[in-house]
């Protein structure tokens, strides 16, 4: 029995309505996700951007005899309560290093303390009425200013919010990631090459495969416990060091790199292997000269993403002691260090209001590095993507 177009259209209406409804629902879901992303970013930017500005104050520093014992004596008492104690502590040392300073005086821009900073930014603070009036006065005459906060990028951690910086954590992260990469990349890639190109397909290799996939799903804190038990307690690797942190994260990153490498190897067409064997390559020559170069973009992308994941990891590092208070920036694999997410974690636990923006600022730095890394992965993939 034949149907006219009108009859068919009447039936179709219901189906069209249904697909339109589904389209709206999925667009709504996307919109919601986008909204949360925007909210998250605007909140972070709102809280974090002020961290990149810091109150500085212009003071008369008088390098007198008393100041060699107590830095505070070098400044007018009314002003010194507004200056960061981190500067006061420097003065005796400055005079000791340069005795000519004794008896002179100069005008200097120095860090104001965090209360002044918070007051200028309109946040809650502990300044007295008098002090507020004085800050207002100084601001009027241009002797107190919010300036770009270089301290945040050049200092390590500090108990004084105004002089706390992210650099020690950045350096610690870089050192830790170097260790992670140096261990996880070669081992991961070679494991995947063996499993994909050399290993026979039997029970044992299948078991290994399943376990590698399971490893990728293990909660990261367990890797921390493993690192503590094996690397620190058994092998005696110094705790809190980038070495032990990097080794622990390497355990975590290994399955990611192995899985990414296997996928990349599998995407190399067999015709390339046949061509290589056809001209008399041994298995290793075929892999080294033909298969690996073609898989490399995929391997790099996977490794960078694995590394970015490790970089944002906090829990296992807390277990191996990498939440240390690190005021000095030191380039070493074996000394105590901290990493960015652990630094953010530490700052988030500080009671002072001024640390709230440090926390958000730290997150912004971490996020920008992660976004840069992921962008590198995308660029690499686009650049080396080949068609055959």
């Amino acid at each position: 029995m034949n149907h006219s177009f009108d009859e068919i259209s009447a039936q179709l209406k219901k189906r069209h309505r249904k697909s339109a409804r589904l389209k709206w629902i999925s667009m709504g879901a996307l919109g919601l996700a986008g909204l949360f992303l925007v909210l998250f970013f605007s909140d972070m930017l709102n809280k974090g951007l002020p961290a990149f500005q810091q109150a500085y104050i212009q003071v008369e520093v008088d390098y007198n005899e008393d100041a060699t014992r107590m830095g505070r004596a070098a400044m007018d008492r009314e002003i010194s309560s507004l200056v960061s104690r981190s500067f006061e502590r420097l003065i005796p040392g400055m005079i000791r290093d340069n005795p000519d300073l004794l008896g002179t005086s100069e005008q200097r821009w120095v860090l104001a303390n965090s209360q002044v900073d918070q007051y200028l930014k309109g946040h809650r603070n502990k300044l007295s009425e008098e002090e507020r009036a004085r800050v207002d006065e100084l601001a009027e005459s241009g002797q107190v200013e919010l300036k770009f906060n270089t301290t945040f990028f050049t200092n390590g951690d500090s108990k004084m919010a105004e002089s706390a910086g992210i650099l020690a954590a950045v350096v610690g992260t870089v050192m830790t990631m170097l260790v992670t990469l140096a261990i996880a990349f070669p081992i991961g890639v070679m494991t995947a090459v063996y499993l994909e190109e050399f290993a026979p397909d039997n029970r044992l290799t299948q078991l290994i495969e399943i376990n590698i996939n399971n490893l990728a799903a293990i909660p990261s804190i367990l890797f921390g416990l493993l690192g503590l038990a094996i690397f620190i307690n058994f092998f005696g690797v110094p705790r809190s060091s980038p070495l032990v942190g990097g080794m622990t994260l390497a355990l975590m990153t290994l399955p990611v790199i192995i899985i990414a490498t296997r996928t990349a190897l599998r995407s190399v067409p067999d015709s390339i292997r046949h061509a290589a064997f056809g001209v008399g390559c041994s298995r290793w020559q075929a892999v080294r000269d033909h298969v690996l170069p073609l898989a490399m973009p995929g391997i790099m992308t996977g490794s960078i993403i694995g590394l970015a994941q490790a970089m944002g990891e906090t829990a296992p590092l807390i277990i191996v002691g990498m939440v240390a208070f690190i005021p000095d920036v030191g380039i070493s694999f074996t000394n105590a260090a901290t990493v960015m997410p652990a630094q953010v974690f530490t700052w988030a636990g500080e009671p002072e209001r001024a640390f709230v923006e440090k926390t958000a600022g730290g997150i912004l730095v971490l996020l920008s590095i992660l976004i840069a890394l992921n962008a590198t992965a995308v660029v690499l993939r686009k650049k080396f993507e080949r068609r055959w």
Partner: protein
Amino acid sequence: MNMQVAERESNAMSSQQSGQPVTRNDSANHELSIRVRDLNLWYGQNQALKNISLDIFQKNVTALIGPSGCGKSTFLRCLNRMNDLIPSVRTEGLVEMDGRDVNDARMDEVALRRRVGMVFQKPNPFPKSIFENVAYAPRMHDLVSRKAEQEELVEQALRDAGLWNEVKDKLHQPGTSLSGGQQQRLCIARAIAVKPDVILMDEPTSALDPISTATIEDLMDKLKKQFTIVTVTHNMQQAARVADYTAFFHLGEVIEYNDTKTMFSNPHTKKAEDYITGRYG
């Protein structure tokens, strides 16, 4: 050509319904290159080759024809042990080249493949430059080392493959940028660059247009002056045009092996005749 009755050394031969000769001993005219006796091959439980006995003669083109799934490509891959790459494959029987059993444990498959080159169905140049495609294998086998030697060898191989004039100005462009027919000739140049004795071709023209196909066929005719060529083809006209000898495979057995002229004008077996005249396949 003088046809002789085949050696009847293989028991399996007597089981052939037709009773026709399936091996030839034409050594009066030609020297033997590869001798295959009682070759059996299994994919897991499936027997894909049954008691194959064939002689392949030097500096001739031998074509393997037959319907899909008849085992002709599988047989071809036995000659340079490419079947080793498939884990479930098991072979029995003799494939002898230069007095040595190629399936012997002491035979290094890399050495074998150096002497028995291969060209595949789909052109598969390495995703490297044209120059590198040809120079890679000779360099790997230490046939050449200096740049000048490499250049000389690359030019010679590309000339022999009839590709030199088309690519001499773009040797450093990727091999994959060439057309399909050119890519296949590049693969032939790559195979002959290591100076093998035998070149195996697995349906080398099935992915190509008629003009490229004709070029490759002409090339096979020229190359047989230097090399022994064994080619698998689905195209019977092609076998008739290029081959000196033709083997007809059916369900894993060689039904008839003859010189091409006889095979196509006066086949000795009913099955071969039916296939050649297009009654099935």
